């Protein structure tokens, strides 16, 4: 029997009706407002780069998203980041994009991730290779996000690979999908999310929201279809560093919608950076009041130091203080 100093795969006792043993699912199912945050992946092989960034985020969020070459730019892999973070007891959401790996690679990664203690997986289509730093790459897209959700759900609930071959210990993971209510076809975005939920999504993380009326329209449709009772909705927010970056983002980052009024508000202010922070806080105040919203997903690219301020100033965490899983004093057996 192998002995580990720490069994990351079982940090919490399992609860009935939960598909994972993770903290994120616990927080959401207990009706508390959850916060997740995206870790900006390093362009290095230094684990400290990951740990330093995680430390800043972990105090104000229930799970850290490890991105999978988002924007089709090459960085440290999501599997690698998850391996480092789970080892240290952090709660992570491993992102899987369909762009870079085929079904054989992804199913193997899911098992590996669950063995490392990954409790949450976010299934994404992935930005096209043309958006990134290596547009010459071959796009894979063997799955799409919906068929990927369906596949991992089958691995977890039926204990089988796509081939039907048995998995002796299935991965216990809480599954998520992404939504972008801010791009066409607007009126069908909710129905499309319904499809993802039917395929296995249990939580939804959205693209950056800078347009609350548009989000409200989307959430109206979500509620009309009862989707907010079938999955947890975490709305994407993030501080804009400047009006210049905002303009650049909306024309260069696929799927980002920033209304003119927001950019004007930034331009009119004396201190754009502070205004960006205040804007994020204001947005959160409005978003958290929308019925059917269960939490926030903070994406503060290269502005991690602001996440703490934003979350505390907006008061969404109340008095909650997320912690890392404590390391047990005695070695824990993996097979126990």
């Amino acid at each position, binding site marked *: 029997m192998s002995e580990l100093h720490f069994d990351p795969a079982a940090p919490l006792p399992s609860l009935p009706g939960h598909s994972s043993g993770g903290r994120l699912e616990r927080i959401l199912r207990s009706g508390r407002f959850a916060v997740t945050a995206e870790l900006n992946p390093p362009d290095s092989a230094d684990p400290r780069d990951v740990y330093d960034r995680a430390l800043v985020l972990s105090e104000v969020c229930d799970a850290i998203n490890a991105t999978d070459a988002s924007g089709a730019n090459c960085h440290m892999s999501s599997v690698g980041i998850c391996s480092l973070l789970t080892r240290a007891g952090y709660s992570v959401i491993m992102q899987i994009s369909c762009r870079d790996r085929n079904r054989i690679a992804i199913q193997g990664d899911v098992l590996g991730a669950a063995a490392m203690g990954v409790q949450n997986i976010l299934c994404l*289509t992935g930005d096209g290779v043309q958006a990134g730093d290596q547009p010459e790459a071959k796009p894979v897209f063997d799955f*799409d996000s919906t068929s990927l959700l369906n596949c991992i759900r089958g691995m977890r609930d039926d204990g089988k690979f796509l081939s039907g071959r048995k998995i002796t210990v299935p991965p216990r993971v809480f599954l998520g999908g992404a939504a972008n209510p801010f*791009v066409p*076809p607007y009126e*069908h975005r909710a129905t499309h999310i319904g499809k993802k939920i039917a395929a296995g999504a249990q939580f939804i993380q959205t693209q950056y929201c800078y347009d609350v009326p548009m989000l409200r329209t989307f959430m109206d449709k979500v509620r009309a279809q009862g989707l907010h009772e079938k999955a947890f909705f975490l709305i994407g927010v993030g501080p804009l560093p400047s009006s210049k970056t905002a303009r650049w983002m909306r024309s260069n980052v696929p799927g980002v919608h920033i209304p003119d009024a927001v950019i004007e508000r930034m331009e009119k202010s004396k201190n754009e950076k502070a205004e960006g922070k205040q804007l994020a806080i204001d947005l959160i105040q409005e978003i958290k009041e929308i019925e059917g919203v269960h939490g926030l997903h903070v994406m503060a690219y290269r502005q991690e130091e602001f996440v703490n301020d934003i979350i505390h100033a907006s008061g969404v965490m109340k008095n909650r203080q997320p912690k890392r899983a404590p390391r047990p004093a005695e070695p824990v057996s993996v097979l126990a």
Partner: protein
Amino acid sequence: MYAVRLWSVRHAKGLNRFYQAFEKVVVALHPLWNKIGYEKLEAPFQVLERATKGFLFDCQMCGQCALSSTGMSCPMNCPKTLRNGPCGGVRPNGNCEVKPEMKCVWVQGWAGAERMDGNLEKIKDVQIQVNNAIKGKSAWLRVVRMTKKVGEFAPKPPKAPPAKKPVAAAPAPAGEGKAA
């Protein structure tokens, strides 16, 4: 052709009706196909299918046609070959993230589906990943075999219990095996 493809989505309702009628005919002709042999029919059917669906939908011959669930907009023309709906990168004008000069296949797909049925029932079907082993094959013949449950869709004979490994947990006493 791109222009014809857009026309087909605009006429999704009529095309879908025609398609359903056509499917019935092809399925009804199963005895004939069976007599000729599905193997022999593959090549001519592929030529026919590629010509007609290629013209109307820019069909990519994935071999597992989903047009009736995609508003008659062929999902294999999406640069990401998404089969369940649009990605999050659709441009504000409804054009594709990857090919800015092309209308997003899924914005089109949803528009086609609206014309086909108001309830959008078919487009809600979750499509599983593509079977790459049957790319290039005739999807029409496959539909016939699927409906008639022949060929690869023939019901499999129930597996005989493995002779080598008797169930160790509860060995049935001799003579009582067939009592239940």
